[in-house]
């Protein structure tokens, strides 16, 4: 099939002309606030309904959930410790999205990265810890990067649709890692499919005691800043953005679309791999067959909902972390399954995607009523 038009073509092609002078930051901020408020309300309402339907008092339950998620510093630390790999993964996916390459293979690349890091950590060293960590991270990045770069190359060179190829790659990579972890590389002292535990030098130190929050948080901050600069400000990012925005324009002004596509995919995969390595070096200490358990997919979703803007991505991930953590708390305080969070995030993302139209229709409605009143 050919490229399907993303906007419904029965609608006019170009967007409605913007008002003469740029809207002031107030207006923008106002619109942002409205959008955020709208999403939050939707989320809360839905959560309340679901919780109520399980026979619990919505408000109290949600409150106890939030209490659990951000009640005290340790809890906050835990909540975000859980999210560290997700921040990186989501940002990684966002990089590729920026250049119009859709890296849906984040989950697989995380597994590959996690395994690479686990092996480097277990079979290499113990070494000087920073060096060891660096090696693990690089190995992971390489593993993820190679996969993504390969698929990116197939797209750029032969037009192999990367959406589908990365999608399929997930299963292939994950199954292959599972094979290694259950088969040749299994830690034979263990009943389940896990690799050997990594040396202590290949693990980040804990920052807040009993919270699981490690010094990896600094790595994440650095990664976030670098990615923000790269994709939003740098020349490289400009080339990626233009390639994504309009390949025809890019190539006619002399941007190497091929390079842009492959490089952004490679970096995207690299970062997703690093995200995987954090699962090992900042939390698990070894690879096992369920290690990423959907974080890659979460990353894809969040990158989409944040429209692959780094800052928005970080915000969304934070929100998501709190939701997941709160759901965990709710599950302990009640019988509400923690899958609640998945249901919620789905609904919220759809709501966010529909937001523009919802507001539009709302405005029209008000307009109509207004004219009715006038007549």
């Amino acid at each position, binding site marked *: 099939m050919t490229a399907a038009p993303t906007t419904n073509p029965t609608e006019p092609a170009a967007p409605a002309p913007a008002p003469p002078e740029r809207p002031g930051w107030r207006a923008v901020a106002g619109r942002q606030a409205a959008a955020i408020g709208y999403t939050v309300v939707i989320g809360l309402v839905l959560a309340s309904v679901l919780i109520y339907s399980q026979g619990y008092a919505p408000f109290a339950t949600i409150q*106890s959930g939030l209490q*659990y998620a951000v009640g005290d510093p340790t*809890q906050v630390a*835990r909540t975000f*410790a*859980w999210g560290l*790999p997700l921040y990186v993964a989501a940002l990684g996916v966002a990089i590729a999205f920026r250049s119009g390459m859709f890296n849906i293979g984040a989950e697989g690349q995380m597994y590959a990265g996690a395994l690479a890091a686990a092996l480097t950590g277990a079979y290499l060293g113990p070494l000087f810890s920073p060096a060891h960590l660096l090696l693990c991270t690089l190995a992971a990045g390489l593993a993820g990067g190679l996969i993504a770069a390969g698929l990116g190359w197939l797209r750029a060179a032969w037009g192999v649709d990367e959406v589908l190829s990365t999608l399929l790659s997930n299963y292939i990579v994950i199954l292959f890692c599972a094979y290694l972890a*259950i088969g040749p590389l299994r830690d*034979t002292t*263990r*009943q*389940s*499919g*896990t690799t050997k*535990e990594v040396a202590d030098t290949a693990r980040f130190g804990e920052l807040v*005691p*009993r*919270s*699981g929050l490690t010094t990896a948080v600094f790595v994440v901050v650095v990664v976030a800043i670098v990615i923000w600069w790269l994709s939003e400000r740098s020349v490289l990012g400009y080339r990626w953005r233009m390639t994504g925005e309009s390949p025809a324009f890019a190539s006619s002004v002399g941007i190497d679309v091929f390079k842009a596509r492959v490089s952004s995919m490679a970096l995207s995969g690299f970062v997703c791999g690093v995200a995987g390595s954090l*699962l090992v070096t900042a*939390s*698990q*200490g*070894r690879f*096992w067959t*369920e*290690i990423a*358990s959907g974080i890659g997919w979460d990353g894809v979703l969040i990158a989409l909902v944040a429209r692959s803007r780094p800052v928005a991505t970080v915000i969304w991930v934070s929100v998501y972390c709190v939701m997941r953590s709160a759901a*965990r708390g709710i*599950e*302990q*305080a*009640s*019988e509400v399954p*923690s899958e609640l969070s998945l249901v919620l995030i789905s609904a919220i993302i759809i709501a966010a995607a529909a937001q523009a139209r919802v507001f539009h229709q709302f405005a029209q409605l008000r307009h109509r009523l207004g004219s009715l009143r006038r007549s």
Partner: protein
Amino acid sequence: GGAKPKASGSDDEGLSVGIFVDNAFGDGDFFDQAAAAEKPLESDLDAKVNTYEGQLQAQNFEPLLQDAADANDIVFVLGFEAIDALIKVAGENPDTRFVFVDGTVDSPDVVSAEFRTAEGCYMAGALAATVNAAAGAKAAGFVGGIDAPVIKNCESGYTQGVAEVDPAQKVTPQYAGSFVDPAKGREIALALQQKGAHSIFAYAGLTGAGIFDAAKADAKISPIGVVADKSPLAPGKTPGSLEMGVDTVLLSLAKEFQGGDLEQGSQHTYGFAEGGWKMVYDKALVGADGIAQLDALQERISSGELKISE
């Protein structure tokens, strides 16, 4: 549920017991067996029971175990995946007693409770052979989840059990490579049936469900359950199950703890004698005297007269 993180549970009056599972309750299997201990714990020891589900999200294990440590005096941990987190958290919380169920953990801070797998599977084998003999089949099927030590132990016990009852029968083992693939379990059941197996013992978690499903749907096989009584999965086709007395174990260990004689890092093993295993039979399928012989055999094991090598 009902666990609110507290500073430390150990200083409040009544005993509070935590049960942590690496996946979740409601598996109709190992974890539910453990959950069965909740009632007796509350009634017998008037203990307060908190449960924790890891949801196979390894990211959650540590926080949850930490919660458990904060809220309870003793915490039972079920599920291999949580071992690393367990060792770490147990080390950090000396004032909470951690017990790992169904395996040994080499850590001075963790009490291990192990089931003598071979012993249990021996009886499963005996049952399989008995049923086969009645059906005139010559092969007993064995389905393992993944090729792991504990499963291998079970296979060897099973094989010995079969040989004990009818040396003429051979065991046809097959490994599914997964604990959560009923479709595959079903295929394997049919494959084993082709190989002439009649009674099939599945030590493979969810994958096993596929075998019972096959039996339910007109496959000529007798599936033998493990951990819990699986007869509801294929009523009238299930000669019996090897039940795992997880609840019994939890209860007795909790008692010891309350009595103050559960020392740190100790290792315990359970078999038929200690109520770690028990057999349940379907009279209609095994027959009264069949059951009688099996009980006799089990008696010899409990009494220690008959030893089963791992």
